[in-house]
């Protein structure tokens, strides 16, 4: 049996597929700081036979927590002489333009733990000064005295020639086998010393915590099952083994959230949709990502703690491209100093949560607005809902200011929240040169189905899919994932004088490294699938375009095709092409999949009628036409297959609700997904 568990902020989710192909789910509370306990709890709660687990896949927040809570190891850094302050100078940018008291992100490694050695390469990777090993020994001694727990090594131009870094790591391991050590070229082979140094610094910083966690989880799992294959979800939408995960733990930084995006792509394949906008609304944020022709976009333009006010910290790990905004079910509605209504980014969180939870929440949230307008039913809350308190709160905090009823104000909150989310969806679609009409919106997470039909119509998307297991869809995505590694290497070459033999050698080197890594993970060569990309640009420009390129040795004709493909993609992304300007490769990127057996999703059999599924008819407050409308409410699990329901209507399921509007229609497809026609042209 294949089982996936996903640790979230509030809940730890579990999804498995039994032998008959049925998808089953379970939820239990997340248990910080001993997260592995929550995993054990949810396994118990699901009542599965733990001995029959053949594959265990896990998404974890341990890495991102260690970073955001600053609970990593005491870390030392070794750099090229003259450059230990690169980590502190960073890039000098200040997103908060008018703030004279801008607080620059503090480096994760203090200055006294940043040490320099004599060694120098030029940009071609040629050695100008050899590595001074005596200095490395002195630094190791110094770090020992300072009780350092992890060491990062980052030298200039190591992405071209990693020899000095390798030599340093080897020496450190000889001198001090117990310390965690990582070299920048092992974590990223891209140029730009600040970004690479920061990435390896953060990798070293989380390494001991990651190892401890993975080991503890492994021990607990082997208590009852020694034969299962255990995998961890990485930020690139693929998995890796526990052992490999410990080597470059920073690759797990977005372990959980990306699985839902990947799941949307898998689901699209199943139902014949290859262009998808994946949309995930949780308690505090909404995330979206664009999938084109079935391809989940992965890049290394990832930052933590980056906002429009803060520069954040770059991590050059391969991460699925996600745009995230501070709008979720728990987002707080408030009035600014001049009396305009705003929603988010502050969230009521899990505790105290929205007013409707009755756990001491005092600020109105999107969830409260959805309750007051009849979109949510008080009966479906885990708490005793005091509807009057919810109404009074919205009346007092929002509605009175505008001289209106609480329901009108609640609808206002929903509209403003939708407006925020719509801007995020536009950011990944229209503003990147895509036409939303060519896409299907796959919505999941606790709040995705609630808002998606309205948003899709605004955006001009014709079809919305609410997948099976939508509230725990990230875990479902994990079940369907393969092993994956991304190899990205800066390799600056102009296309007009490209040495095709050397090119082939470069690709082969990367791919044999991949075979080696998959071999460590027990994946045979015939199960490994490669896709090659080149990040390309016009000479003199900075920004690049990721161009799919063919496998094998390139011919001159293929080279011409690659250049043409680049021109096309550049025009799509940046509106123009420069046919007479030279082109240049910046990075080589190989995505490598280790294919594993995945569950087959079965079609559902259901002999029910709409009457069976109908729960009630209740009044719901809508915007257009404005007012209370008697709306039929259905139980998702009982809906008959392929029977159409006209909006307005509400579909309830455990932990999620779907709202469709007048002019929209919905049906359940063969697999149990909800398919909504939004009425957009």
């Amino acid at each position, binding site marked *: 049996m294949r089982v996936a568990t996903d640790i979230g902020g509030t809940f730890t989710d579990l999804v498995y597929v039994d032998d008959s192909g049925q998808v089953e789910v379970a939820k239990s509370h997340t248990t910080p700081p001993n997260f592995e306990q929550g995993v054990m709890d949810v396994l118990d709660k699901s009542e599965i036979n733990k001995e029959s687990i053949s594959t265990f896949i896990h998404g974890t927040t341990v890495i991102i927590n260690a970073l955001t809570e600053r609970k990593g190891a005491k870390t030392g850094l070794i750099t090229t002489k*003259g*450059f230990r*302050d*690169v980590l*502190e*100078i*960073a*890039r*000098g*940018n*200040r997103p*908060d*333009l*008018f*703030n*004279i*008291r*801008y*607080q*620059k992100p503090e480096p994760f490694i*203090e*200055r*006294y733990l940043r040490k320099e050695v004599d060694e120098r390469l*030029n*940009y071609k990777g040629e050695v100008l000064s050899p590595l001074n090993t005596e200095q490395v020994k002195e630094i190791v001694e110094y770090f020992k005295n300072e009780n350092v727990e992890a060491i990062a090594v980052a030298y*200039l*131009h190591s*992405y071209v020639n990693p020899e000095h870094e390798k030599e340093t790591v080897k020496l450190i391991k000889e001198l001090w086998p117990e310390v965690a050590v990582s070299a920048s070229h092992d974590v990223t082979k891209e*140029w*730009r*010393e*600040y*970004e690479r140094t920061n990435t390896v610094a953060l990798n070293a910083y989380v390494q001991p915590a990651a190892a401890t966690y993975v080991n503890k989880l492994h021990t607990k799992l082997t208590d009852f099952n020694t034969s299962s294959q255990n995998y961890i979800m990485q930020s690139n939408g693929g998995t890796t083994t526990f052992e490999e995960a410990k080597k470059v733990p920073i690759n797990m930084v977005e372990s959980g959230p990306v699985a839902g995006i990947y799941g949307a792509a898998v689901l699209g394949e199943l139902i014949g949709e290859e262009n998808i906008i994946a949309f995930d609304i949780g308690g505090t944020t909404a995330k979206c990502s664009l999938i084109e022709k079935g391809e989940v976009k992965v890049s290394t333009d990832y930052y933590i703690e980056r906002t429009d*006010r803060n520069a954040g910290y770059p991590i050059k790990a391969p991460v699925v491209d996600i745009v995230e905004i501070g709008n979720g079910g728990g987002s707080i509605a408030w009035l*600014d*100093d*001049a*009396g*305009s*209504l705003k929603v988010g980014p502050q969230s009521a969180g899990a505790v105290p949560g929205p007013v409707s939870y009755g756990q001491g929440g005092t600020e109105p949230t999107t969830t409260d607005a959805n309750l007051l307008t009849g979109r949510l039913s008080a009966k479906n809350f885990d708490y005793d809902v005091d509807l009057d308190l919810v109404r009074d709160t919205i009346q007092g905090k929002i509605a009175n200011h*505008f*001289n209106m009823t609480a329901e009108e104000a609640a*609808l*206002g909150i929903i*509209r*403003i929240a939708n*407006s*925020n989310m719509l*801007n995020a969806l*536009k950011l990944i679609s229209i503003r990147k040169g895509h036409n939303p009409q060519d896409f299907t919106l796959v919505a999941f997470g606790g709040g995705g189905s609630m808002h998606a039909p309205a948003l899709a119509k605004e955006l001009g998307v014709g079809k919305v899919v609410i997948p099976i297991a939508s509230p725990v869809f990230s875990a479902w995505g994990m079940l369907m994932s393969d092993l994956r590694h991304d190899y990205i290497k800066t390799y600056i070459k102009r296309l007009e004088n490209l040495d095709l033999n050397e090119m082939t050698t470069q690709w082969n080197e990367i791919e044999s490294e991949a075979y080696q890594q998959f071999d460590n993970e027990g994946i045979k060569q015939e199960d490994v699938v490669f896709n090659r990309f080149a990040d390309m640009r*016009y000479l*003199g*420009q*900075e*920004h690049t375009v990721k161009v799919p390129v063919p496998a094998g040795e390139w011919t001159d004709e293929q080279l011409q095709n690659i250049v043409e493909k680049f021109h096309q993609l550049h025009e799509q*992304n*940046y*509106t*123009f092409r*420069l046919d007479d300007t030279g082109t240049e490769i910046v990075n080589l990127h190989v995505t490598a999949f280790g294919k594993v057996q995945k569950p087959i999703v079965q079609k559902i059999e259901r002999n029910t009628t709409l009457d069976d599924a109908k729960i009630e008819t209740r009044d719901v407050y809508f915007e257009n036409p404005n007012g209370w409308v008697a709306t039929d409410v259905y139980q998702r699990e009982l809906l008959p297959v392929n029977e159409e329901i006209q909006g307005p209507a509400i579909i309830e399921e455990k932990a999620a609700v779907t709202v469709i509007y007048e002019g929209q229609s919905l049906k359940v497809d063969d697999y149990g997904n909800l398919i909504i026609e939004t009425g957009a042209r």
Partner: protein
Amino acid sequence: MLMNETKIDPFTLEIVKDSLLAAGDEMFIALAKTSMSPIIYEVLDYASGLTDAKGQLLTQGNGVTGFIGMLSYMVKQTLNKYGENDKLKPGDIIVINDPYGGGGSHLSDVGLVMPIFYDGELIAFSANKAHWTEVGGKDPGSFTNDSRDIFQEGLQFPSVKLFDGGKLNEGLVEIIQANVRFPDLSLGDMWAQVAALKTGERRVKEICDKYGKDVILTAIDNQLNHGETISRQELKKLPKGTFSANGFVETDGIGNGPFPIKVEVTITDDEFVCDFRGSSQQVPGPVNCSFTGLASAVRTIFLAITNPDQNVNDGVFRPLKIIVDDRSIMSAERPAPTSNYFETMLGCTDLIWKALAPHIPHRLAAAHLLSVCSVTLSGSHQDTNEPFLIVEPSVGGWGGADGQDGASGQFCVLDGETYNVPVEVAETRYGVMLDEYSLRIDGTGAGEYIGGKGVIRSYRAMTDGQEATITYGRNQYRLWGTGGGLEGSVNEFYIEKADGEVDGPYGVYPRYQLHKDDVLKLMTATGGGYGDPLKRPADQVAKDVKNEYYTVDEAKTLFGVAVDPETFEYHELDTRK
């Protein structure tokens, strides 16, 4: 209540306002994406936005701080020249870079303005302004530190029509082509600007289609009033009275200076008045700043003082008033050269900052590097023999403030989302190697909260015949501290020649010749300190010593803390008691 003035529901207005802001963001992104020039898509040295039909700014996307408010002056200039007798029509685009006539900065920053019509009525303007790599003039790259009049600085566009009713003025394009050194780049940027303007026009029209023109016009008024309301609320919280400061623009680049400048700031419940009268007259070298530049300088610091968080529109600036003598260094008129206007502009921002820092410590700080610290380095690459050109600002120290140490290694306040060039990128592209890129540790900027560190960036020339033009303002007067904090240092550079000779320090220098293995050592200033250094917690001082931000001696003499250089154990000295 504002909301009661209209029957349109407040949430629709809010959503329309958001849509206008989103349109502004989209225009901003569109320009970076379509530009061919690194100074635009890397340094983000441009701004774009929307104004109402009167030229009041509604939303502005900024990559750099210094352009704030300049768009509205371009639109107002357009209205002055073409507004009467229906001389503006759909499809018009006006080009402006005249610093004294709506442009505001220097000739390199070229602005475009497009009126937006709906149902035959002028309802808004789409505008942007971007630093072109080339606009002609005496030096490659156009902006220079030793021009003597505006004619040496390049081609001037005195608000003329680039498009007339949608028809391109081809003669103008040919003139540009003939007068600039890299016409492909300059015209490429011009087309990118045109495309971004059209994006703005399209979005505004879509919003009109969706919500109706009246809703949009109401939302626009509402937006401006919202900005004003927030601004006035903040103004009420400020200390009232008159505050003054004096300072200098150190040099005009051609041997004159320093030039005294001064301000008197009067804050009342309703007004924020900045009176610069009595400052130096306009000067022979290119540090003159036009009134529009001065207005941006004042707006920048006004926002920092009132509400750095909000979306900026012209409503926010309604309480502002600026008084200045004619033809002064900060209200220069034709034909004064303005290439390095930003140094005077920074000086004006700094004056208000300095006058108010002791009184508004929760929003202000001690002095920061106070110069763009611009570096131009040209030559040829050692391997390819291809020519290269580095044009970059430099990072330096920011001042300490109540409750926080100053940031180290940041660009000056007039920059913003500006990124330094990575060492690995520089060494690949340019004919240089870097000997170091490190914090400058010079013992200055002590305080309860210390000034941020400047940096040392050392370029080693890898070929003969390289040429460096450096404009490091604030080279003579050290950065001021506040609240008892000590002064920071100055910006300066040295040349360590291959034969061992050391030349310098210098601040502003045109075209310094470098030979192979000469090292250009650029050093930016440490920011001023905030508060009495003797009040800095002793354990923090010991940490500073351990981190090598200050020496054992400095800990003793400046901070009154004795720190053991081996164990970093410490004790407080009598000077602290």
